[in-house]
Structure formats: C-alpha cells, structure tokens
C-alpha cells in the first residue's frame, strides 16, 4: 500500500534535493510544510497527490489535517548558519517538540528526524546549533513515537552551505586552518543522503535508532580543504594555521554584541576540533545504495574557477566573448561545440600558471580587459594560455562558412579613412599596452619570483 509522507523544511537544501529525486507515483500523498515556496515546489504543485502548506512549525492548526492523513513524517526543518542561541532552541528544539506533539495526535507511524553529526561532537562549547539538535533528539527519543534519527556528516553537493563556506576559505589568498588541521571529516554526497532517507522511509528501516550517514572516505580537514582548492582553483596553496581555541573564545565574546558582522561563529569552528566521522555506516551496508567517492563528489559539486579547468558553460561564455572580440559577431552552436572540442583536444589549460590564470580570469571579464590581456601577451608572453585560446578560436573561425570572411577581409575604405583607422588602432594598441603593463606586470614579477630563479628566467625568455 502506498504511504502518505509529510515533510517539514522541504525548501531547505536537503528538502529541495529530495523533492527533485522523489518519485511521486510511489506515494499516496506528499505534504510539504514550509514558510515560502520555490521552483521545485511550484513545479510539483500540478500533481494531485502533492500539497504545499505555507506555514510555520509552530502553527499546528494550519497543518494538523494533513498530518492526520500521513503515515510518516520527515522532519528536515532546522535553523542553521549564524543565529542567536535562543533562536536555535526556538526553531530546532521547541519546533520539533510542537511537531512531535501533533504527530502523536495524528498517529504518525514513523517519525524521521534529520539531525546533524554535530549532535555527536564532544566539544561543543558555544555551539548552540549542536545543543539545540541534541535537545531535539532527546525530545524525539522520549516522545513515544517510532522514530529514526539520521545524522549526516558534512553534506557536499552543488551549493551546499558547508561547501560554500569551505570554498570561501579554500580560495582565500592565504587559507586559514583553525587548529592543527588533523581533525577528521567524512564528507557525504547530497544525493546519497537523499537516497538513504528515502530508503528509510519506504522500507521503515532503523526504527528507534540513531544512525550516522557518511561518505566512503575519511580525510583530515586540512586535506579536504586542499582537495577543494585543487578542484576549484589551481593557484599555489598557502595555508596558515591559527590557534582555534583562542579564536573561538574571542568569537564567543564578540558574538554577544557583533553577531551580525562576524564572518562565522565560535560554534562553526567545531568542525575543526571535532572528528565528524562514522565508524560504521549502516545505511549503505548491504542495501545497494550508491556511496559517491570523494573524487566524484568534488567533480560533481565544485565548479572550477575561471583560469582553472573549467566547465562547459564557462567555455561557452568564453567562446562567445572571444568570437565577439575577434570578429564582432556571436558564434553559432557549431562554433561553440568546436571550441569546446578543440579546447579539450589541445588540453590548453594544462600548463596554466598563476599569470595565465590571472590573464584568463581578467580577459573573461569583458572585451575591454580581453583587449588588455591580448595586447600584453602579444608583447610579453607570447606562449600564454590565453593567446593559445584566442588562436584556437581564430583557427576555428577561419574554417567555418559563417565566419571565414570576417577573419580575412580587406578594409574597403578610402585612403584617408583607412589612415585614420590605422592611427586609431595604433593609438589603442599603445594605450592598451601601457595600461596592461601596469595591471599585469606585478603578477608577472610575483609569478616569476615564486617559481624560483630558473622558472623566472624561463618566463622572461618566453617573450
């Protein structure tokens, strides 16, 4: 018999992903509680067995009738990120209590609560989120309903909140590592979490149990940040270890007055001091569920920065910009496809150094900066990856029926007009050269210096 499922926090990160993956046909009804809708909710609303209830957890009256017709509840709603202690407890602990009471009245058969690995942390001084989750877990355990508590480790997926925060760190010029960096993490891919949760609901698994869901590999937090750095940006990684306890104490003090202005809270540093791992990973054992490897999840979730190995849409945008720059018109689909193919075939970014990355990033901003970078590389760095890219673009354009005329044409203008154009081009070239020297030379010198004397010599001889 098909079940009816009631979901809270359906518009949060895990909820949204779960709704994208869920097969509505397998359920009698799906009721979603949330304070605001989103695209996924809107797209599902056309199904008869899907209902979105716009309300707060505390507003029992608005959702009680739907709980009455539900078999299972998936409780995802939670307050995360930066907030005051009382807010955490109001939403995460008290909110859970209210929901649970209503669930009891509605005779819910299975209550699934998505908690956090933080509830298992040993050192949670000032980490109110963890405290509020622990409180909620206790309420559920004592509540008398059949429950399953799920504790995901670090959830990695496209734009997952923790990934976004760590990427900000990983891309900093100097990456701060709080503590010795040897704390272990075991990141898990978002779709694997979703798969586990759905499997638990569908098969009524792990009743009255608390289980951790983790990815297949453990790694130190420093190692993981290093991997994120490699996956996102190929700049040389510089790390700075900071004393985590002193910083946490300072933050804890400042939070009382300046919470809004702090980049992060003392509690959020807990991941640097507590191992976030699972000794056992029972959800994946013998159930044939996919457990995505770290390489795979990074490839799926981390969008490389411009200047590093980049994805298709970046290269398409680059192709658009380059074609417009070189011949003043947009590329068609064929040209874009060929640019992607040629870019991969010539493996253009394989030798990109810091200066290359900066030139590519700058050039990709707009045609003005592209011109500066083009002029600079034509004089000082003729083997630049950017120049190779532009040449590849040119090589493609000269082969295509739509564009070959544009790359090889005589200016059909009279002598005087031609002379003015020539003068104008010479002037723009010299001006661009002047500006580009000011912009790019410091990076060139820095790049040469950090590569050591030999590399430096090579760099200069390149031009």
């Amino acid at each position: 018999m098909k079940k009816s499922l009631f979901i809270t926090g359906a518009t949060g990160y895990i909820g949204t992903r779960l709704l994208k993956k869920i097969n509505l046909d397998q359920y009698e009804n799906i009721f979603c509680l949330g304070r605001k809708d989103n695209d996924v909710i809107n797209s599902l609303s056309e199904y008869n067995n899907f209902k979105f209830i716009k309300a707060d957890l505390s507003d029992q009256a608005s959702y009680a009738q739907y709980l009455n017709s539900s078999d299972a509840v998936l409780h995802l709603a939670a307050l995360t990120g930066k907030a005051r202690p009382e807010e955490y407890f109001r939403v995460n602990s008290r909110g859970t209590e209210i929901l649970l009471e209503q669930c009891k009245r509605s005779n819910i058969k299975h209550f699934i609560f998505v908690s956090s690995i933080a509830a298992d942390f040993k050192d949670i001084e000032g980490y109110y989120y963890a405290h509020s989750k622990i409180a909620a877990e206790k309420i559920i355990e004592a509540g008398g309903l059949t429950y399953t508590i799920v504790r995901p480790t670090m959830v990695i997926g496209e734009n997952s909140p923790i990934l976004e925060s760590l990427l900000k760190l990983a891309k900093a010029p100097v990456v701060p590592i709080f503590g010795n960096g040897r704390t272990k993490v075991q990141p898990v891919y978002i779709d694997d979490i979703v798969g586990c949760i759905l499997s638990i609901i569908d098969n009524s698994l792990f009743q009255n149990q608390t289980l951790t869901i983790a990815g297949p590999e453990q790694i130190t937090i420093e190692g993981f940040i290093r991997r994120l750095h490699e996956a996102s940006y190929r700049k040389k990684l510089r790390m700075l270890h900071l004393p985590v306890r002193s910083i946490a104490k300072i933050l804890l003090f400042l939070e009382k007055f300046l919470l809004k202005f702090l980049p992060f809270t003392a509690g959020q540093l807990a991941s640097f001091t507590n191992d976030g791992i699972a000794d056992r990973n029972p959800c994946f054992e013998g159930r044939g569920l996919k457990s995505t490897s770290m390489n795979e999840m990074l490839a799926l979730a981390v969008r490389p920065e411009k200047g590093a190995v980049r994805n298709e849409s970046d290269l398409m945008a680059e192709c658009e910009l380059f074609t417009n720059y070189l011949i003043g018109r947009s590329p068609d689909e064929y040209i874009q496809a060929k640019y992607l193919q040629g870019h991969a075939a010539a493996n253009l970014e394989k030798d990109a150094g810091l200066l290359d990355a900066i030139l590519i990033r700058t050039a990709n901003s707009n045609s003005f900066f592209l011109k500066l970078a083009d002029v600079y590389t034509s004089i000082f760095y003729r083997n630049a990856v950017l120049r190779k890219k532009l040449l590849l673009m040119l090589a493609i354009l000269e082969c295509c029926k739509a564009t070959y005329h544009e790359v090889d044409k005589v200016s059909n203008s009279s002598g005087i007009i031609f002379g003015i154009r020539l003068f104008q081009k010479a002037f723009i070239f010299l001006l661009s050269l002047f500006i580009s020297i000011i912009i790019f030379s410091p990076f060139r010198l820095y790049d040469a210096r950090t590569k050591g004397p030999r590399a430096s010599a090579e760099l200069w001889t390149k031009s």
Partner: protein
Amino acid sequence: MDQILIVGSGASAVHFALTVLKKGYEVTMLDVGYERPEVLCPEKNIDELKECLKDPVDYFLGENFESFIPPDYGAEYYGFPPNKNYVLHKPRQFDFSSSGFAPLFSFAQGGLAEVWTGGVYALNDSELDDFPFSFKELLPYYNEVAERIGMNGAKDDMLTFFPWHENLMEPLNPDYHSSMLLSSYARKKNYLNNKFGFYMGRSRVATLSHDRNDRKACTYSGRCLWGCPNGAFYTPSLTLQECKKYSAFKYVSGMYVSYFKYNKQNHITSVMAESVQDSTLHEFPVNKLVLAAGTASSSKIFLESVFRKTGEVIKLTGLMDNRQILVPFLNLKMIGKECKRDSYQYHQVAFGIKTADSREHIHGQVTTLKSALIHPIIQSFTLDLKTSIFAFGNLHSALGVINLNFHDVRRDENYISLNVDRDFSRTALLINYKPVDGEKAVMEGAMNVVKKAFLKLGCIVPVKMAHIRPMGASVHYAGTIPMSEEKTAFTASKYCQSHDFNNLYFVDGTTFPFLPAKQLTLTMMANAVRVAEEAL
C-alpha cells in the same frame, strides 16, 4: 618474359612499372600502400567547400585539431592538411634515428610526391656532369614523362636554368600577385641580370593547363593544398591507377619489405616482407628486383639484407639533400588588394641566381599567399590578435614565401646505416648528416641577393624572419649508391644496376651522384623510364 618485383609505389616506381608493363613484363609491386581518403565535394572551390562540408573544422584542423598551430609549436611546420596525414603514416615495423637530419618518410600509395608542390625541372648538362649520361641522352625520357604526367612551363629567362623539352603545356593563368612580380621583373630584368645574376620566370609545374585525355584542366578551385579535387595536379597515384589497368600488373599492398635473400653468387632469390596488419612474414621469389622505395628506405632494405646474410653493419655514404630556406616577403604594391582564394595555390614564379660554378646555381620558387590556413601566420605579428586580424586582412594579398634551394654533393660524413638491437632482433634506420663547412656564408650571400633583388621588385624581405629548414625537410634524398663507371662496392652502373647484386636495380634517388638545387622528382621519373627502356 621475365618477372619484375618492384618495391615502392612512389614517383619513380610507377613510371618504371608503367614502362616495363608497356614492354610486356609481368610486374609485382610490393607496397605498404596507405590510401588517400575520398575527395569531398569535388566540384566546389575552397570557399564553397567550407559551406559544403558538414564539419569544416574537422576537415581543415583535423579530428584532434592536429593542424591547429599554437605559438609554442616546436616541430618543423610543413602545412600538410589533416587529409594528407596518411602520406606520412608509418607502419609499426619501421623505425629510425637520425642526427643532423629531420627525414620524412612515406608509405602511402604514390609516396611523398602525393604531398609535393609539383615543381618539375629538368637538369642541364653541367648539372648532369657527374652522371654517366648527358642531357641529350635523358631528353627522350623527360619528353615521355612530361607527356605522361602533364606539365606546363614557359620559354622565358629561366631557360638559362631549366633546359627545354617537349610536351610542355602553356603555363597556368598566374594569380594577380605572381603576374605583378613577373611584370616588375620584366621592367627591371637588365639591372637584376647584370647586377645580381638574378633571373625570374614561370615555374614549371605538373598541372594540366587544359583538358587532356580523361584528365580535366586546373579549375583554379584554390584547393591545391588539400589535394587537387579533379586530378589536374599530378601525383604518382594517378600513374599507379594506370598501371593497375594492366593484367600483368600485380599490386600487393599492406607489405613492409624488410630485406632480400641472396645466394653465394650475389644473386637475389627472394624478398621478405612483413604484413603490416598481422606481422606475418611473406616470401616473394625474385627474378629481377627493383628498389624504388625512396633513397632512405631502399638503402635500408639493402643494408638489412647484407646484415641478415653476413652480420655486418655497413654504412652507405654520400647522402644528399637540398638545403632550403623559407623567406617571407611583402609586396608593397599589393597591400590593401583583395585576396583571391580561388586561384592556383602553389608556386607560379621561379627564379635563379647564377654562381661562379654553374652546377652550384641557386634556385628559388615564389609562392604567393592565398588559401593556406592563416592562423599560423597571423600569430607571427607582434600585435594583439584583434589588431593582427585587421593587419593581416589588408596584407594578405601582399604576402608570399620564397623557397630557396641549394645544391648538395656526396660527402663521406653523411651516411645511412643501421641501428641494431643487442639481441639482433630489430634494426632501425640510422641517418647521419653534417652540413658542409662554409654553408652559412653561401646562405647569407644568397639571402642578401634575394633581399636586394626583391626590393627592386617592390618587395620587402625581412631576412631576420627567414627560416632555415633542417636538413631532411626538402625531402630530396639521394646519393647513397651512386651510378659509377667503376665497379666498386655500393655503387651502381649507368643503368642503375647494382654492382653488388647482379639482379638488383635502383630507380629512385639512390643512384644520383650529384644533387643540384632543383626538385629532383622529374629527373627521377625520367631516369626510371630510361632504365626500364634501356636496361631491360
């Protein structure tokens, strides 16, 4: 009648084969024989081709973008398009190493002349001085080959350098830039002749300027570089097709010839060839063996045969090749003119510079820039690429390349030999070359004349941009088993019959005792016909 086994299908092999087939011999030709891909959209000109092709980038740059030339492209740039890659493809059985020499090899049907630029120049008496025959003796065969392949030329100032023979068609319509150069020369020729010994005229090319038999005349489609779409431009595979019409002709492809076996009387009994596909060894009985695999490969077969029989690794000395220099130039009068891509692409103008010794005259060909890929050229400008495109568009029709050729003589330090594995299981071709002392001064002198003469013609020649091609790049290899009146080891008779093995003939460049500064292909073909007519 005797059976003849020919190794190779290049320019000299096919003309030798056709001649002996006409005489009634039975011919077997062993060849690796990679085939030319199908000609796409044969009716279209170069611009229409871009519109006709489904995937023009694949056609012009290659499946793996191998014809995309990045700024750090290190290798010698030949400009061969992707559809001609088959010409340079090597079977896995073949290996080589070289010093001072960058050789090209072909295992394709038709050989290296499938990617030639069609220059066909007869040698004059002084250039044939070291050969055991005169121009007069070779003339009938020049005439015969000219008739077979279809070539054109003009009776102009270049007669000083290129002797006249029969069966030359009237020249092709010159492109505008070439005719500008020729008319500038006509006005300044007295000065140029007297001051620099510089002469200019039409080059002789193996292209039909009017329909002949079943071949159509050049349509000026601008596709020369990517392979003539209608067969107006001659390549040896055309003659190979003609040979295949003879029932007495057996063409065995997919065979890499390793060596021949011979008996105590130095009589060759069979040839051993490996299947390119499965490496199985095949033995072909020999009555008369004709090596025409190109100087390097014919020498390799000879060396390996001796090594297999005696264990001795010998050196074949006297390897020659033409030094070439490529010099770009800019014709000031052509700046801002429209570039017509649909015209004949290869050289239409030739020039010669006289030297004290007439054997050492310097020859050059002038190719005006038309439909070749432009990104390799645009990137050489010291300007950003956007401005370079603007500049190139206005300079395109004014640009050209001069190809300067220098003669070579047989010297002992230049040789072909074998590299042998420790366990004697594998051999590889070994080529060693050292340029002659004083070469640099000769090249500089020639460049100086070219610079001044072209300036007189209204062209700027940036000598600093000249590219001295590595030895081996001109692919005019010759001289390792030269024709010699004396019956010494590793030489051949006037009829290119080996002095070491009585039933072995070489009809490629192997037997040339001297290499003038000219394309040797026409003379190789004529010589092959001569040997077929006179020796057999």
